[in-house]
């Protein structure tokens, strides 16, 4: 009889342990409602629709930035502003949009969340890497205005690719800044958005649950981000129909933009992870899941000091890896600009038509610039490294007459001055890669222009280096 009781107890304990493990799960979804006194009809407590709305505002804004016709275009400017600072209803989701074999469920921003914009959540600090001593909001407004008058997004005179600059910088100044410098930072304080109260009166989630969800929404991963294969995730963001079946997690025949799509830095995490040398997407999403589970396990009670310490550790994992994702992207594009500058120089020497090359060069520089200034919006003082990176990358790429943008005049026009040669600028890109690699423990190191050197040095080995005869 005693043996039977013992077996029953063991079975019960095993089942309980299994239940706890199962509840942790591998998806960022379906966390139960823990807030006390909730009387609504929600069945779970996860909510980050506002953040996904901002993700599609950003992707749509980028699309609009390509629509300039080379002249001042007030209509386009107004449309772009609607996606950056407007809150009006009726804004269509321009991207991601349905494609043949890859239908998406939502077509309006309001279907995700109403009354959202990017401007209200943009980093409030100054951006020393951009000319004009502007705040991040001012920089984005400036870029949007320039983009509206650009030649399909490009300003060939000053070497600007506005869609890239706007997109990459907004990802940092809005999503990265909000997540790492707000939700995963001050809003994790004990008395801020506590876990024993609803986030707002009547919400199905507690203060801490929603704070954590919002940070997750800004990262841009789908709910299966902790386990999804990087190549598959990357293809989902590109809207490839061959991965549709795997991406349609709930099997409703459409991609739900709030739970099944990949955005922003989650996309670049997958881009780095495709190298097989990193695992940023899975690592960051898993840390989000683990943190959310910890909050859920508090069952609507205030987090203890020990729980908060553990939560901060998860936040730390997210912040560190997120920063690395941006640094890896900047590293990659510094390598691209290096190669472009070399090819451009060679093309000029041979009197070839370099228009296409120049466009590519500007494009890659735009990505590099966007990521490098985004890196500086995380609320961390990057000190001398930031100064060095800003100087190396410059306010524009070196242009064909060996000039470079050095500032902005009172009328908002770029000012150029003579600068280094294209080849010297290529060298600055090498130094940018070195500076990034010295500052961060980068692993993917895509487009590593010094890789050939290190690989060959390794191959030669060190045998007999100190021997004589």
């Amino acid at each position, binding site marked *: 009889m005693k043996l039977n009781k013992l077996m029953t107890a063991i079975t019960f304990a095993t089942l309980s342990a299994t239940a706890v493990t199962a509840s942790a799960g591998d998806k960022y979804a379906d966390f139960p409602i823990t807030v006390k006194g909730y009387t609504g009809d929600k069945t779970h407590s996860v909510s980050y629709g506002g953040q996904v709305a901002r993700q599609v505002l950003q992707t749509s804004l980028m699309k609009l930035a390509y629509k300039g016709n080379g002249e001042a275009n007030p209509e386009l400017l107004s449309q772009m502003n609607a996606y950056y600072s407007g809150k009006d209803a009726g804004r269509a989701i321009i991207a991601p949009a349905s494609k043949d074999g890859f239908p998406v469920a939502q077509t309006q921003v309001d279907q995700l969340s109403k009354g959202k914009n990017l401007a209200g959540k943009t980093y409030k600090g100054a951006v020393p890497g951009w000319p004009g001593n502007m705040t991040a909001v001012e920089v984005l407004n400036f870029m949007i205005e320039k983009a509206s008058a650009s030649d399909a997004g490009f300003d060939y005179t000053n070497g600007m690719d506005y869609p890239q600059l706007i997109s990459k910088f907004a990802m940092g100044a809005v999503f990265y800044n909000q997540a790492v410098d707000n939700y995963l930072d001050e809003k994790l304080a004990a008395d801020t958005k506590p876990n024993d109260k609803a986030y707002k009166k009547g919400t199905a989630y507690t203060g801490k649950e929603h704070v954590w969800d919002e940070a997750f929404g800004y990262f841009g991963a789908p709910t299966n981000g902790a386990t999804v294969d990087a190549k598959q995730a990357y293809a989902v963001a590109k809207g490839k129909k061959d991965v549709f079946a795997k991406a349609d997690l709930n099997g409703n025949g459409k991609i739900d933009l709030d739970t099944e799509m990949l955005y922003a830095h989650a996309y670049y995490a997958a881009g780095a992870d495709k190298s097989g040398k990193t695992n940023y997407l899975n690592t960051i999403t898993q840390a989000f899941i683990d943190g959310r589970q910890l909050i859920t396990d508090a069952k609507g009670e205030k987090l203890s000091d020990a729980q908060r310490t553990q939560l901060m550790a998860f936040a730390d994992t997210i912040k560190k890896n997120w920063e690395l994702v941006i640094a890896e992207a900047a590293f990659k594009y510094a390598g691209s600009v290096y190669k472009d500058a070399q090819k451009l120089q060679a093309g000029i020497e041979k009197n070839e038509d370099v228009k296409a090359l120049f466009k590519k060069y500007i494009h890659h520089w735009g990505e590099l610039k966007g990521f490098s200034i985004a890196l500086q919006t995380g609320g961390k003082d990057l000190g001398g490294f930031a100064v060095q990176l800003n100087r190396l990358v410059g306010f524009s790429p070196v242009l064909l007459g060996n000039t470079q943008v050095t500032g902005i005049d009172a009328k908002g026009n770029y000012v150029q001055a003579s600068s280094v040669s294209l080849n010297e600028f290529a060298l600055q890109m090498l130094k940018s890669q070195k500076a990034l690699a010295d500052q961060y423990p980068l692993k993917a190191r895509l487009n590593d222009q010094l890789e050939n050197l290190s690989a060959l040095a390794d191959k030669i080995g*060190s045998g007999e*280096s100190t021997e004589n*005869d």
Partner: protein
Amino acid sequence: MDSLFNEYWLQLSQLFSNSQQRLYWGYLLSALLISALWLVFIEKGKSTKLNLKSLLISHWLSKSSSADYQVILINKALFLIITPLLITKLYIATLIYEQLHLYIPIRSDLADITPEWLVVTLFTLTLFIFDDFARFFLHKLMHEIPWLWHFHKTHHSADKLTPLTVLRSHPVEGLLFSLRSALVQGSCIAIFIYFFDDKVDLYTVLSVNVLLFIFNILGSNLRHTHIYIRYWHWLEALLISPAQHQIHHSTLPAHFNKNYGATIAVWDKLFHSHCYSQLSDNLQFGLNSKQDSQEHSLYNLYIRAFVDIGKSIRSFLKSPKALKKRSLPD
């Protein structure tokens, strides 16, 4: 501390297990086979006592050989600590690669028009030749510059040669050769990659430059033995034979400052330090014919160089001309 100790033993074991090392077991085995074939088929049993003595245990337990072992053990420990502080070939390569952007702005189409096999062949050959020349030239300086000779004496004080004698060197000499290696290899890597980009590679066998592998597998370890293997004169004008290197270690004044080369003999020809091997193989090794066993003490192997340099400096300060009159080696 444990990891440092483990690393020490790992590095020691790699002396014999790593094919990039001269003492790799495969090269030692090939040297043994070559010497056996030489003694049986070429010498036909007419070898001198000196040749055969080098195969006896007493030779390997001599004071000279014991000093070799001590130097190897001590230097490995020293370099375990020093190596992370040394300038690396990657550092040099990066530095030169960066400077090339400034001084040679136009790379031309070399990378596009040169077939990959040719780039790899050129790199393999260039690296081997420049490395060998640098080795020759620094070796020559070690003999001809007085203060450097004080350090190099540690190597030449060996009066019984075994393959392990190659590692009997003063740490200062080790540092200089490490710097030499970084400079030569770093320069070659930077220049080739600057002009040929990712086409640059190295032909290797067992992870070693194929030319260095051939040199090692064909008996490089016989240079530090008493097996007097000679080549034809035409070949000795091109490549240094084991006998020629043994001449380099000879105590005969006529052999002083001869055959500095590691593999290629042409450098010695060009710098007038070349010496063919002779039929007679009764060579005596060491600093001089009257060398005593004190030369194998740790004091003499490690400290005396500094004391001698100190004396030279004092002597120079008293009478600069006196220094110039010194003849080398001691």
